[in-house]
């Protein structure tokens, strides 16, 4: 492998340099394709910038690795398990549609039209979220719309680093508003047992079934925790195999890509608040463990709430942010007819993130 790269590399490098100088010397071409080339080039080659001011050495972690880490974790956390449970033909086209629409159409068009410098690799992360929190039977066009809306929303509000709301969640919110039935129906029983070629490609016949939280609300029946943990249960495409999600999430925290305070505080507060309600108000509330292990909570706590841009910057703010998320999640789940509160909780806390930040700063620095 290394040998092949070594041979191939100088040729590639030379040609890329040639294209680069070709584009840069022609203003017209540069206007149309400059940004696109830059974006593509940025994906395979490092930048040529060097440190001009102190300190003159820099750590190797950069935003590309940052996003790459999240992509790897998402792949291990939900893509692989859901391929096992629902089959390649269910999962892969969704991801492809999401990527093509989100990154290769909307983002590329945006790069060319708005003359942004480059495609931002954050788009891949956003687009990988979209199929994950939709039901397994969601139609492909729904995913395309979701990805397009998310990326467009992110770009309009200023691009990575400026957006107030998590773009993927905002996309899902719009889908929920526009196509309310499609987002909450089509839960499919996952495939169980030894994987065969057939099961890996097609999954099992679509038998729809309610999600564990809905079951509890209707019949007070608690789905087995083990089956919830290992994902042999109904739910959105990406949220069912919670063991894999937890492992991938912990890895992210260990790599310091996700801030460990957020999942800890979020999950902890959901547990505490739901225990509080369960033991004071009684059976109408779902028991704490069921709340922890159902719905998109684990997925959201490790991957969505930890999105660094849309949380607050200060560490104390992060605690407040995630405890707030936990509280709202429990309230929405138990006191409203809405089946899942995670999305609203995170979006709401994203909104109040800025005030939290300024209040924390005021108290901390008395400024």
């Amino acid at each position, binding site marked *: 492998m290394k040998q092949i790269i070594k041979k191939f590399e100088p040729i590639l*490098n030379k040609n890329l340099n040639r294209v680069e100088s070709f584009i840069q010397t022609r203003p017209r071409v540069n206007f149309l394709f400059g940004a696109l080339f830059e974006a593509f080039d940025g994906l395979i080659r490092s930048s*040529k910038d060097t440190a001009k*001011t102190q300190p*003159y050495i820099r*750590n*190797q972690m950069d935003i590309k690795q*940052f996003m790459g880490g999240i992509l790897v974790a998402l792949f291990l956390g939900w893509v692989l398990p859901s391929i096992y449970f629902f089959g390649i033909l269910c999962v892969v086209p969704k991801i492809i549609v999401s990527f093509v629409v989100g990154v290769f159409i909307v983002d590329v068009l945006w790069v060319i039209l708005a003359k942004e410098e480059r495609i931002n690799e954050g788009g891949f992360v956003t687009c990988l979220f979209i199929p994950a929190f939709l039901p397994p039977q969601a139609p492909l066009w729904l995913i395309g719309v979701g990805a397009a809306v998310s990326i467009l929303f992110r770009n309009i509000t200023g691009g990575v680093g400026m957006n107030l709301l998590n773009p993927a969640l905002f996309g899902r919110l719009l889908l929920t508003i526009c196509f309310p039935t499609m987002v909450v129906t089509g839960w499919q029983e996952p495939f169980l047992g030894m994987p065969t070629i057939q099961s890996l490609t097609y999954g099992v016949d679509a038998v729809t079934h309610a999600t564990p939280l809905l079951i509890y609300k209707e019949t007070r029946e608690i789905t087995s925790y083990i089956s919830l943990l290992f994902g042999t249960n109904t739910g959105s495409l990406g949220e069912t195999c919670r063991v894999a999600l937890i492992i991938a999430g912990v890895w992210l925290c260990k790599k310091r890509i996700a801030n460990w305070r957020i999942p800890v505080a979020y999950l902890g507060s959901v547990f505490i608040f739901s225990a509080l309600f369960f033991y004071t108000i009684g059976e109408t509330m779902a028991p704490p463990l069921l709340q922890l292990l159902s719905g998109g909570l684990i997925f959201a706590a490790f991957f969505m709430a930890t999105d660094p841009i849309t*949380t607050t*910057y200060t560490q104390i703010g*992060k605690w407040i942010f995630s405890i707030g998320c936990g509280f709202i999640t429990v309230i929405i789940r138990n006191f409203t007819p809405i089946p899942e509160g995670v999305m609203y909780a995170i979006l709401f806390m994203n909104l109040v993130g800025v005030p939290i930040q300024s209040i924390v700063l005021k108290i901390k620095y008395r400024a």
Partner: protein
Amino acid sequence: MGLCMAKTDKDKKVYKNGFNLFEAYPIQFSEKVETVPYDEPAEAFNFPFPDKNIAHIMVNLCPTEPWALPHVRITENNPREFFSKLDRVRTRYFGGSHCHAVISSHEIDLIKEVKEFTWHGDWLHTYLLDPIYPHDAPVLLLKKILGLHLAYGQDTRETGVLILEPQAVAEIFEHYIRGNECSTRLIPLSGTGLGENKILKVKPGTPIQAILDGNVRENITCRVFVDGPLNGSEVKDMRQRIGWTTKNIVILEERDYKTPFSFFRLNELVFTTSLMGELRRCVYCNHCDDMCPVNLEPALYWQCHTRGEKQRARLYGLEKCIECGLCSFICPSKLELLQIIKECKLADSGSRLKDETDYKKI
């Protein structure tokens, strides 16, 4: 003798409030010490003795930067002799003062040996430190060991503390007490621009060019830094001379071209001047404040700076910053945080009036 054992677990320290550079950039120096030929006479040795009363002398035997001179080269595996030199210097010039020696907590042998000294009365105090950058910065040392609060950039002598470099102890001893002529100094030379990391015996006054000759790798562009790439300064003019306070020289390869498939070949890029990424907007990842040794939040300064409110930065504890550069070092968005901090500090000390006239112009 107070040997205070620092209770720390290593992993935690690496990432919280400082960075273990030894793990990131392991630098092996060759065993032999080479002499750099230079015919002209060396710059005369002159130690600027402070005119203030010195109550405490601090000797740091625990460099936290891997490119610094390993102290074994000075103590020559004979710490007893080193400390007796220190005692002579102390009694002769700083009578009545106390000495505080900082030793790396990884050096079991040295610690043991120092423990066995029973002859030295109560003038010597030893402390353990994990070699984590920048915990040997004067501000932090004074605060941790003596409990003194020093502002960054303030001379430690004003508070009656003299920080002596180990090599300076030996030099003062040789020059003033023994009366021998002291004309060479050990300078460690390291970095990716070299074939081999060496320790050189240099006459102060030698131009840096003479040191580079024959050592720098061919066919690459290099940049030269004095006193380390994190905290030191870049040498633009190779005729600049080595002085008696020069600590080390680091030569880094300049990677000012694009490297294909860089994510598979990171080891080629580390410890070069490459930014290893592109300048982006801050993503509020908290790496900088996790790293900051004085618990500041550098991203706030970036915010103030981009909004053009440099004065506001002072509100967020700006003056506590010891300009160690770790925040810029770690930032995945490759923001020039240290530069921003310096600009904010300048904007602060500069008169407000200037800004008001700026406003009027608009």
